[in-house]
Every structure is written in structure tokens, then in C-alpha cells.
């Protein structure tokens, strides 16, 4: 379904406004750029013009933060239509959403909220992923989210829920290794067991980002360098899955572009040993 994805050894960054002009001027060698789909739902103007220029120079990944896949509300028709037209216009290599919910009864938290890990929620979210895939006529990736609370009535470990959602719906996984690490600390499970529960064939992309500590909790702020623990977990993930397109995200206190490019170099140093030479890109 859909256009081919990215070479498995690709490394890219989340594209954020403070870096727009510099990236177009410097054209750093990046396997792809990823944007938040909703930032380009507007009817016209400068945002879409920027995206056209980036698309002309780089492979693109559209990463949604607002589909609210797991919400008990019906899928938002207007949201789906906006995403569909964006996908049609920009022909991205990857399209992803989050395995979470963010709205109920029409009210939006504009945040990625965790699901209760139950059979009921699993059935629900699988049906919704299928709806989105049918609408877009392509396979999407869904991303595991970081979380700071758990539902007392959850009956399924998170890693089984995530793997099962992908298996039943036929979607791929965007495995956020930082989120696995953050949740393993916040909820007290073994991060390596999580990685071990994921079928390599399901993983279409990996995310890396930095967290910050606040008391007992690790907070997924996307506001720091990738931690040593997460680099180690990433290495273990690549050893299990093989090379996978990898993205570095930074969203709060966005640093100079050079810092992100450093993190990309670090990701490449992990990817290189597992990438077949013929598949290397950028």
C-alpha cells in the first residue's frame, strides 16, 4: 500500500520553525524531515509554501499529533479530510499517528493521553486505525506514547497492547525508544522486555528524544539531548530489528540546528554497523 518508505539507514530530524531558513540555506545531508501534520492543515499561506520547498529538497514524514485515534468520540471527519489532502499533495514517505487519545466529547487536551490497556480499548483503536488506513489508502505507523499515570483497570501490559494493535490492524509501529525508557522508569517495567515483545517486521521508524527528571517521574519534554540509557536501548532495538529510519525530535527550548545534527551523527554511528552498505543514504 502506498509509496515506498525510506531506506532503513535514514536518519532525520523533526522540522521546527526556528530552523526553517537555515535548513534551506545549508541543505544538511538528512535522510528525511518530519513535520507535525496539523501545522499544515491551513488553507494556504506561508506554512504550505515552506513545506513545498522542504519537500522539493528532502523526503518527508507526516507525523500527526491530533487524530485522537483512541478517543471514544467518532473520528473527526474534518481532521481526516485535512490529512488526506495533505498526504495527496505532498506524497510523504511515511505517515504516522499516536496510539493514544486527546479529546473527548469535542473537548481537546491537545496532548497525547494514555489509553487504558484493555481488550475494549484495543478493539476500539484497531478499528480506528483501519478506518484511517482505508481513508488514506495506505499503511500508517502508530507511535507508542510516554505516560505519567496508568489506569488501574488496565489488564494488558503496554508492550502487548502496542504489538497487538499493529498485528490486528496491519499498521506499522513508530517505536519511540525514549518513550519506552521513560515509561519503564515511570511505571517500573523492563524496557528490554518491551523491545523484545515487538516483532521486527512491524517497526517502520524509530524516534529518539530527550527527557527531563521531575521528582519521581521522567518527563518526555523533547527538551534535552538523548540520554545515555536511551542510546543503549536504541542500540539494543537496532540489534533486534535491524536498521530503521530514525528521527531525532526536539520541541522545547529548541537549540541551534548544529545540536540536532550532532544527535543525527550519533544515531548514524549506531545505524552504520547494522546497515548493509548498499542501503546507506545520507
Amino acid at each position, binding site marked *: 500500500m502506498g509509496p515506498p518508505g525510506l531506506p532503513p539507514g535514514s536518519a532525520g530530524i523533526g522540522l521546527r520553525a526556528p530552523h526553517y531558513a537555515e535548513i534551506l540555506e545549508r541543505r544538511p545531508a538528512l535522510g528525511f524531515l518530519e513535520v507535525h501534520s*496539523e501545522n499544515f492543515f491551513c488553507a*494556504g*499561506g506561508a506554512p504550505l509554501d515552506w513545506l513545498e520547498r522542504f519537500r522539493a529538497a528532502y523526503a518527508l514524514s507526516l507525523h500527526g499529533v491530533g487524530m485522537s485515534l483512541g478517543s471514544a468520540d467518532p473520528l473527526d471527519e474534518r481532521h481526516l479530510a485535512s490529512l488526506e489532502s495533505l498526504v495527496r499533495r505532498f506524497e510523504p514517505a511515511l505517515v504516522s499517528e499516536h496510539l493514544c487519545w486527546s479529546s473527548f466529547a*469535542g473537548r481537546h*487536551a491537545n496532548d497525547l493521553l494514555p489509553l487504558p490497556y484493555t481488550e475494549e480499548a484495543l478493539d476500539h483503536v484497531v478499528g480506528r486505525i483501519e478506518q484511517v488506513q482505508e481513508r488514506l489508502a495506505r499503511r500508517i505507523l502508530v507511535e507508542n506514547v510516554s505516560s505519567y499515570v496508568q489506569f488501574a483497570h488496565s489488564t494488558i501490559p503496554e508492550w502487548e497492547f502496542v504489538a497487538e494493535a499493529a498485528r490486528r490492524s496491519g499498521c506499522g509501529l513508530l517505536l519511540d525508544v525514549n518513550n519506552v525508557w521513560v515509561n519503564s522508569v515511570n511505571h517500573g517495567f523492563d524496557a528490554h522486555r518491551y523491545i523484545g515483545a515487538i516483532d521486527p517486521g512491524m517497526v517502520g521508524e524509530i524516534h529518539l528524544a530527550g527527557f527531563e527528571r521531575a521528582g*519521581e517521574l521522567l518527563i518526555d519534554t523533547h527538551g534535552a539531548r538523548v540520554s545515555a540509557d536511551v542510546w543503549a536501548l536504541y542500540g539494543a532495538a537496532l540489534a533486534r530489528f535491524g536498521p530503521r529510519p530514525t528521527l531525532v525530535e526536539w520541541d522545547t527550548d529548541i537549540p541551534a540546528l548544529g545540536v540536532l545534527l550532532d544527535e543525527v551523527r550519533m544515531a548514524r554511528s549506531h545505524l552504520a554497523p547494522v546497515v548493509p552498505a548498499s542501503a546507506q543514504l545520507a
Partner: protein
Amino acid sequence: MTSLARAQEEFLERILDARGTAPSQGIEVYRRNVRASLGGALAAAYPVVRRLVGHAFFDEAAIRYTCSNPSRSADLHDYGGSFGAFLEAYEPARKLAYLPDVARLEWACHESHHAAGAPAFDLAALRRIGVGELGEVRFRLSPATRLTRSSHPIAAIWEANQPPRDGTPARLEGPDHVVVRREKLVVRVERVDAAEWTLLAGFAAGASLDAASAALAPGDAQRVLAASLARFVRDGVVCGFAMPAADA
């Protein structure tokens, strides 16, 4: 209601309730995230208001606003359109009488920035309209055009607070009749006179050229139709026109 729906309803209630102490550190993280998302959206849409009142004052107003105005869209660019109306009733801002209208102007700019583009005005088609029928022409404003007005010098205040300006407005008196338009991709804020503004407001309401000009004083109408209308066409304030459907 399913148990999933019930769990989501309760959870959302807890994290959108920004007052009082959070029941757990985890819930507090979500409350902070929501505040940061919505507050960030307001700060991005209202940079001039934020500069005028200072960051601390703005952040407090933003928290008050977000408590009574939940987000209704997954697209944060849709959030905050009623902030001007909120400021009108916000007691701590009472002395800054111009603030609500400056906010309304900023929202007009925000909408203009994200609006659809428009094709070039078809002048040849307009020339084909007979002189006798010109009064029936209904001019169409561009999707990125917005009209706003105030008894305060909002255009001067807005302009004085664009970086790197120091915030000192060139005029201290209103009223200001303002057209927000987009030139290629850049949003422009322009002060026009009351007659020009009234003509455009007529077009925005769907009035014909005759009906829109009838709202102007005779001397004004002649001047505005002779010079201003051509300028509005040239600058893309107006992007097209329609004729009323022929009677069946």
C-alpha cells in the same frame, strides 16, 4: 456509555481542571502540558498583546482564558479566537482600553496568515461588463483579507510593536479603520479611511457596488470609486467579482 468513554471523561475532567491541587504528580504533568499547549498557542497568535502587558501578566490572563475556553480543535492554530472578547471583560486589563481591539487585529492577522491564496483579479472579465451593469457587480474580498476597526489607534500600536520597533506608536489617537491583507505570503496591516472601509465592509457583506457605495457620503463615494477601488484590486484586497444570477 462504554467504560472507555467513562475513563476518558473522568481523565479529561481531571486534567482540564487547572485550579486546586492535582490528585497526583502524574495528573499535574498533564495539567502543565495542557496549559503549555494552549498558552503557547495564545502567545504565538498574540505577540503584540503579550509585549504590551508583559509576559507574567499575559501568562496569568492566558490561564484564566484557557480555564473558561476549552480547545475544540486538534489544530492549535484554531485556538484563541475569542481572546479579544475575553480581554474586554478581564478586570486587570480594564485600564488598557485599546487592548481588546489590538487582540482582535492580531487574530485577523493570524487568520490572514493561514488563509487560502487567491487567483489574480480577472480585469479583462471586468472590462467586459457593460457600464449600465457595473452597479450590479459584487466584488469579492480575498480569503486572506480581514477588516477591523477601533476608536483606538490600533494600527499604530500594532506597527510600533513589530520587532525591532521600540513600542512607541506614531499616533496616539484613533479611530483606526484597518485592512489586513496578504501580499504574496506576507501579512500587511494598513489603515484606510472610514469611507474606504465602509465600502469594503459592504463587499464583505455581499452588497453590490451600487448598494455598497450608497452607504457613503456622495463626495466620498466619487473619490473612493475613482481611486481606492483600483488600489484594492491592485493590492489583492479584492480578488474577484460576481454578477447576480439572471432572473429565470
